[in-house]
């Protein structure tokens, strides 16, 4: 069990001399506290698996350091790091029974037989694998196999952290939910640091207390699910998280006002002093844009389609050339295409070159 510090960590598969833009992981510095549940979220190819493999020691970084509890383990082998990892596809040892599979990491480390038996029993109970202990692992279903992989990680009492690399890819949707709750329960019970890589925002947001969003080899935001939702630090986080994603539109911002399509929107904070050369956009989540009946003085929009999601209805609207998603308030039924939209000023964010700008009070 350990706190994990990444210090200026970066990696390129073609060596340290490669151009900075080609790095699979661009330099990152961050701290992961002991006992936390973290998710690394991002589309495929964003560098999340690279980051995971750097931590587990499968890949040695081109640059920077990794510290476990303050001790530099950058050059240490995977075995020395005391890491457990669960892979995308279940890895089981074909010739062994479920019990032997679970005992394998302990046997390799020369743990006494009695202790192994006790430990295996405990983990098998926890994962509900006890009835299968004497069965060959080959013939089990994918989710049982993935539980065994997970069990091999949990069976060691001394692991610094457990890493998950999209572990639920091959699992049926219904079982996915079960396994995820199981993981969450295990996390609470065992007080382990868990790092979970996924491209599925639901998985990330339900599992983790801190979600690290990655894009193009860079960590773009690290925060609680609520922070990611309410205050995306990067336009990418805005539209990657949330369904539908955040509305991002170009605007002219001056002081406490933003102008879109010739219409002025009042902002909550003061944005004087934005550099003139950068691309200025405003972002607002569909949940904070309401469709209302057209009226003078409101930003007019034309409705293209309304999606009824049961609890909530979202309209696809067009303002000038820009398409937006907006909430249709309960009880409101628009007549025809013509409508207007109203923003909640507290949730309108301003982005300069994709990065969030904190305005002055």
């Amino acid at each position, binding site marked *: 069990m350990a706190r994990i510090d990444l210090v200026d960590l970066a990696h390129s598969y073609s060596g340290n001399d490669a151009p900075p833009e080609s790095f699979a992981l661009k330099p990152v510095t961050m701290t992961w506290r002991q006992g936390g549940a973290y998710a690394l979220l991002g589309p495929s190819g964003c560098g999340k698996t690279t980051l995971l493999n750097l931590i*587990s020691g*499968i890949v040695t970084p081109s640059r920077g350091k990794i510290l476990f509890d303050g001790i530099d383990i950058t050059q240490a*082998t*995977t*075995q020395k790091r005391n*890491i*457990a*990892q669960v*892979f*995308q*596809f279940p*890895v089981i*040892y*074909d*010739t*062994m029974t479920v019990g032997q599979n679970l005992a*394998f*990491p302990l046997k*390799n*480390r020369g743990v006494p037989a009695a202790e192994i038996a006790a430990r295996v029993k405990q983990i098998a109970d926890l994962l509900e694998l006890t*009835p*299968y*202990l*004497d*069965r*060959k692992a*080959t*013939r089990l279903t994918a989710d049982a196999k993935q539980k065994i*992989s997970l069990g*091999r*990680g949990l069976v060691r009492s001394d692991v610094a952290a457990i890493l998950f690399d999209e572990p639920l890819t091959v699992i049926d949707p219904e079982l996915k939910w079960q396994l995820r709750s199981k993981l969450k329960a295990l996390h609470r019970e065992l007080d382990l640091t868990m790092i979970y890589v996924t491209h599925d925002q639901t998985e990330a947001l339900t599992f983790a207390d801190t979600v690290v969003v990655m894009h193009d080899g860079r960590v773009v935001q690290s925060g609680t699910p609520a922070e990611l939702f309410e205050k995306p630090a990067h336009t990418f986080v805005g539209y990657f998280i949330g369904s539908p994603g955040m509305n991002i539109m170009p605007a002219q911002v001056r002081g406490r006002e933003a102008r879109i399509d010739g219409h002025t929107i009042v902002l909550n904070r003061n944005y004087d002093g934005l550099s003139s050369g950068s691309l200025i956009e405003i972002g607002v989540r569909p949940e904070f844009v309401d469709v209302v009946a057209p009226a003078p003085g409101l930003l007019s929009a034309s409705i293209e389609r309304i999606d009824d999601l049961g609890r909530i209805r979202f309209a696809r609207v067009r303002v000038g050339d820009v398409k937006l998603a907006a909430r249709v308030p309960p009880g409101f039924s628009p007549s025809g295409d013509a409508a207007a939209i109203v923003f909640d000023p507290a949730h309108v964010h301003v982005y300069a070159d994709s990065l969030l700008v904190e305005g002055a009070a």
Partner: protein
Amino acid sequence: MEKTVDQKAWFLVLPVFLIVAFSAVLPLMTVVNYSVQDTFGNNQFFWNGVGWFKELLDPNTDLGERFLASVWRNLLFSAIILAIEVPLGIVVALSMPRQGWQVAACLVILALPLLIPWNVVGTIWQIFGRPDIGLLGYVLNEIGLNYNYVSNDLDAWFTVVLMDVWHWTSLVALLCYAGLKSIPDAYYQAAQIDGASRWAVFKAIQLPKMNRVLLIAVLLRFMDSFMIYTEPFVVTGGGPGNSTTFVSIELVKIALGQFDLGKAAALSLVYNLIILIVCWIFYTVMTNAGAERPAKGGIA
């Protein structure tokens, strides 16, 4: 993926069926026909019933003695080369370079012996082993060993076995290499994380994953070594004496040398049957060994 039942598929298989039937069934019928007859030349044939088969399996007759001796000799040969080539092939496959041009270079050199016509393989070793003009024979004699594969039984066996190892270990190695290549990296990474030793990785991951290809390798090597003809024939001609006369060599001696068609045909059938049976045993044993043993614990 469930296959659909469709008898029309027979039309797709028909060409193969016809061509193999033409090449196999017609000649086989000829063989069966010969095997129950005797000939005195001039295309005169007489019904002989199971006489040849009786003679063949009776070690007190000349034919039976020769046949049974060649079968034991051949089984011994197959056992020896399997015992050498399978482990050696695995070791070579495990020693293959990881990446880069060396991989292609190694593969090309490994495959080279496989594409040399079998009589040329014989020729190569016939030359290589000769004490007067061959490097191997010369060196062995220079270091004080009295090596001569033409006159000494043991030397002849040594040469024929070494030649087969040279010729066919590559096949085992390439099959194993293909099996090893198909193991996803995650297995090695997981084993690393589980703290497995090199030997444990081999036993827990590599060997089980090579199971299928090893089965193919053992079957192919057994079949081909039990059918071996050309290479030892070129090198030793079956001698000295009869010490390297394997079943095929014996068969050709009888069929083409003495033109004893009945005896040769009976021998062919028994010979073919032995190969089928041994292959079937190998296949059953090896697939069962890998199969699941009955569960001891209860199943929820």
